């Protein structure tokens, strides 16, 4: 009986070690992007592109400096959380935050383009870029109102 218990413990111990090892090998996207500071820099760069963009800038013309800072802080938490980082996003869900704006398919595509420009600027490898875009892709159906 004691022997069985011991060997069971060994098996469990071993398997959990293997699991931990696997986890260690497959770093989260958050880690591979470079952690919080890197994500914060990416979000700030993207925010400047969005606010000054000919097509999407219209959505940001009524945001004060304080509002823009809040938006950047929320977006940073959101990306950190969505990529497996240690942040908790406390802003509104994406549907509530966007409904009524009348965002079109073309607006969404422009957003993806600008995101790629930012990721390229920071030399994010293609694999991580793809994962990043896959992480935001499901939001399209919630955010886009006009086909």
């Amino acid at each position: 009986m004691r022997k069985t218990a011991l060997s069971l413990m060994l098996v469990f111990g071993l398997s959990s070690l293997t699991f931990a090892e696997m986890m260690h090998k497959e770093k989260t996207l958050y880690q591979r992007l470079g952690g919080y500071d890197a994500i914060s820099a990416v979000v700030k760069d993207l925010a400047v592109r969005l606010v000054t963009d000919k097509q999407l800038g219209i959505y940001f013309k009524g945001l004060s400096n304080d509002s823009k800072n809040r938006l950047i802080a929320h977006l940073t938490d959101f990306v950190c959380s969505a990529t497996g980082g240690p942040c908790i996003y406390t802003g509104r869900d994406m549907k509530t935050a966007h409904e009524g704006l009348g965002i079109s398919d073309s607006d969404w595509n422009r957003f993806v383009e600008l995101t790629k420009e930012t990721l390229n600027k920071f030399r994010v490898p293609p694999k991580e870029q793809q994962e990043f875009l896959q992480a935001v892709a499901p939001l399209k159906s919630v955010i886009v109102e006009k086909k």
Partner: protein
Amino acid sequence: MRRYVLGTFALLASTGFILSSCGGSSSAQTPFERLGGEQGIRKVVSDAVPCLATDPNIGVFFRGLSADSLERIQLCLTKQLCAAAGGPCTYPTTITYTSPVDGVQRTYTCRPMRASHQGMVGPDGKGIANDDLDSFKACVQKSMQQNGVPSDLQQAVLNILESQRNDVVDDRNK
């Protein structure tokens, strides 16, 4: 003896009641009361939104507001006018509101005028101009006219909005 005391109390209480009713006559009412309290102010604010959103000068500042954000901004303006017009509100304040999008209760902090206005982009990249505040006041005045607000009371509300010019108009336009 006990009956006498009780009777005096009753008399005092009723006198007090009559006095406070007299105090409620229109001359002593606060602008807040005359506007119909928070509900009346909210009506004036809501009815100004179509004008604000389509105004050639300032409509652009409202284009990026989602339905939820538009609800919040109306509630905040209501709180602010309530506070400035002698009502029982404080400003800035954190409000609890029901989202028009999903009916969920959320909280939001209504910020001071400077924080919520300085640094906007606007059509020329320079934020809110002096003319823009004039357009804002014109929309609120139109809404007050629609709602039958007496002209002296309209002026009181417009004076409140005017008193915020320095915080609302972008520093880059001074």
